[in-house]
């Protein structure tokens, strides 16, 4: 594999600065909880279903219970103590939830927390055990059917909005060569402060992430994987206001990868930064435990910011995502750090600039399965030109040893992908990988040459930016407020979901945290 020899001192300094810049955020996350983190705890303990009486019956019991606890005793202790204390007299979580529905549940903080702690720990442990079993099952299936024969893995999205249209399309894509299927989400989901239930058919430009949709798609891909003799991975999105819960659902339904970025929700969904960082840490702990590969979202910055001018912000964000992921227990092989082929194709030497950026990421994160995103911003309705550009994107992926290749669609600027778009896109990938997949053997950007120089320029700019961020007492949170990423400014107290955040009290207890921290997977 072609590698650039990066300036070691610069790399070391970049990592050190990233850790410093992220420290305030880690601190924040360790000392706070959120409604969604607490709901995730209840989900791990097995609470499902919705309150049939409220609204159209869409509000999950976990929301009802957490809200009730918050109303009665506040969130700062976590829900585990009040809930399992309330269950002290026996009865199931489900029954308790119904009492909440009926307005008869009463919550309080027990004077002796031990019995409630123990009961909560035992309940949540069943969920963690299911996650562990899924992880083992994945290893088994991979051993049985085998992994994709080559890198990069081919990653395709389905996006009909209807899980029952998604399924055949995903299976068709797998048969046509996809190694990873991502079901993208309906436009509105990230701002919902609850996770919808059941199989859904009404998403816009994506399908709701629900436990049942996960289960259906997982089963369908297991079927097609057995048929093909190749384990087909399933991806969804742990982002938005319910990131921790969706992470749990992913673990419970054996998803294999999750989009999970430290800043995406803040920048692109205007979710409150504090809320995000707290939710983020918990969800990453779940992913670490579940053996899920996360995909970060640096590619998105390049849809709003210029891919040449702001290339270094991608590098900075990758370094931050890395340090935050490590802190949450993720290992290098789980870090699908994002970057993208988004340079304006009219820029002279655009392809070589892309190679330089891609090699920089490859060189900085040698053990991470980098997620290489296709052109989107400069795709136009000229589907022929788009198909060509996607081919060069595929080539860049092969030349620079990317781990996960998100397949570009010629209709990027037109519609969410059609069945035929996906099929044509896979043909494109197949041609490029089979015809030129080994071209990296002949690819040797010289030291001091165009590519080497460009990579070092970006790295240097990244270090300079990190210096500025690390120097600020609030670190990353301040940088976000300054519009550092994706030229989007988000203030620490703005955005959605801040009211769902609580500073932890001294006696706070979160059995999931405890269990996940204890046995590091």
């Amino acid at each position, binding site marked *: 594999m072609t590698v650039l020899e990066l300036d070691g001192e610069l790399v070391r300094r970049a990592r050190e600065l990233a850790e410093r810049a992220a420290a305030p955020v880690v601190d924040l996350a360790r000392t706070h909880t959120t409604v969604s983190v607490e709901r995730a705890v209840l989900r791990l303990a097995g609470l499902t279903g919705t309150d049939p009486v409220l609204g159209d019956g869409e509000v999950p019991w976990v929301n009802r219970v957490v809200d009730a606890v918050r109303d009665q005793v506040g969130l700062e202790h976590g829900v585990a103590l009040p809930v399992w204390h309330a269950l002290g007299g026996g009865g199931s979580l489900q029954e308790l939830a119904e009492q909440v529905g009926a307005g008869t549940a009463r919550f309080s903080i027990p004077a002796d927390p031990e019995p409630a702690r123990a009961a909560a720990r035992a309940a949540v442990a069943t969920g963690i055990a299911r996650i562990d079993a899924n992880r083992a099952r994945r290893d088994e299936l991979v051993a049985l059917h085998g992994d994709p024969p080559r890198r990069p893995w081919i990653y395709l999205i389905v996006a009909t909005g209807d899980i029952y249209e998604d399924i055949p399309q995903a299976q068709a894509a797998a048969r046509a060569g996809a190694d990873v299927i991502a079901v993208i989400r309906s436009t509105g989901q990230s701002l919902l402060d609850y996770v919808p239930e059941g199989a859904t058919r009404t998403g*816009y*430009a994506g399908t709701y992430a629900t436990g049942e949709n996960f289960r259906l798609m997982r089963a369908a891909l297991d079927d097609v994987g057995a048929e093909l003799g190749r384990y087909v991975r399933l991806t969804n999105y742990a982002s938005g206001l319910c990131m921790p819960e969706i992470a749990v659902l992913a673990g419970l339904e054996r998803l294999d990868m999750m989009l999970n970025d430290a800043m995406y929700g803040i920048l692109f969904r*205007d979710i409150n930064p504090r809320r995000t960082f707290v939710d983020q840490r918990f969800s990453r702990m779940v992913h670490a435990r579940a053996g899920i590969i996360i995909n970060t979202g640096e590619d998105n910055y390049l849809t709003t910011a210029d891919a040449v001018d702001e290339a270094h912000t991608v590098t900075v964000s990758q370094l931050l995502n890395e340090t935050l992921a490590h802190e949450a227990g993720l290992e290098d092989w789980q870090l699908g750090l994002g970057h993208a082929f988004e340079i304006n194709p009219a820029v002279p030497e655009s392809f070589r600039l892309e190679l330089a950026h891609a090699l920089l990421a490859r060189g900085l994160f040698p053990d991470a399965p980098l997620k290489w995103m296709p052109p989107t911003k400069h795709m136009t309705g000229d589907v022929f030109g788009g198909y060509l550009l996607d081919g060069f994107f595929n080539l860049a992926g092969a030349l620079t040893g990317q781990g996960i290749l998100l397949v570009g669609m010629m209709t990027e600027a037109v519609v969410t992908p059609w*069945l035929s778009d996906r099929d044509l896109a896979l043909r494109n990938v197949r041609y490029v990988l089979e015809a030129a997949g080994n071209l990296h053997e002949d690819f040797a950007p010289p030291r001091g040459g165009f590519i080497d120089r460009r990579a070092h320029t970006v790295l240097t700019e990244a270090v300079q930016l990190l210096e500025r961020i690390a120097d600020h007492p609030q670190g990353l949170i301040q940088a976000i407020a300054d519009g550092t990423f994706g030229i989007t400014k988000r203030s620490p107290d703005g955005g959605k979901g801040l009211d769902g955040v609580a500073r932890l009290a001294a006696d706070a207890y979160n059995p999931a945290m405890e269990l996940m921290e204890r046995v590091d997977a």
Partner: protein
Amino acid sequence: MRPYGDTTGDGMVQTSFTLPVPPGPRAEGAALQLAHKMGIEPAMVVHSHGIGEGFTFFVVYGSVKHLVDLDAVHVEVRAYPLLSPGEVNAAIKTRMRRSLVVLGACIGTDAHTVGIDAILNLKGFAGEKGLEYYREMQVANLGAQVSVPELVHAARARRADAVLVSQVVTQKDAHLRNTRELAGAFREAMGEARPLLVVGGPRFDPAMAAELGVDKVFGRGTTPGEVASYLVHALVPEEEPL
């Protein structure tokens, strides 16, 4: 006038589509049938391949029999002159004598702000500065995922002259639905006193304004100057007030 392949009047077009049938002669026959219904005659199925179990993708070339009648083409001719920022400012200043209040947002669950930002933000688009650059305009960009009631409320509160709304996601005609909802809500809340309603996005057909209940629709590639010029045309009185 007919499409042009390599000879005047040859009528040549390319088309591609997928039919939910497995590949084979029946599928090719079906593709030809569709091509004929589209007016392609003779039509050549020049490529087909199966997708998954029950689908076939086709590429068809051929000559369409339809004539294009240029005279019947209804073009939204710009009914107003394209003004420079200086002219826009001058018009507002001298003929309106107060700043023009513009409110922008992306409604529904659509989070694509780049389009509305291109029109409103200083940075602008295609070398033209956005409306924030216009001294005589007072611009507020509410960003994305704004609900219609919020927007109506903000428009009232700020006494907006014009509300500019962007819609980029079009799957299942979300953009059309959201625009109709917008128009309905403003009509209901403010009746005749509602601000000028302008929507935009890459997949809108500019001819649809009336149908959608808004005043103006902008499509793909709109520039800030076009929008500013329209606002002057629609909101600023022809003559200086006496």
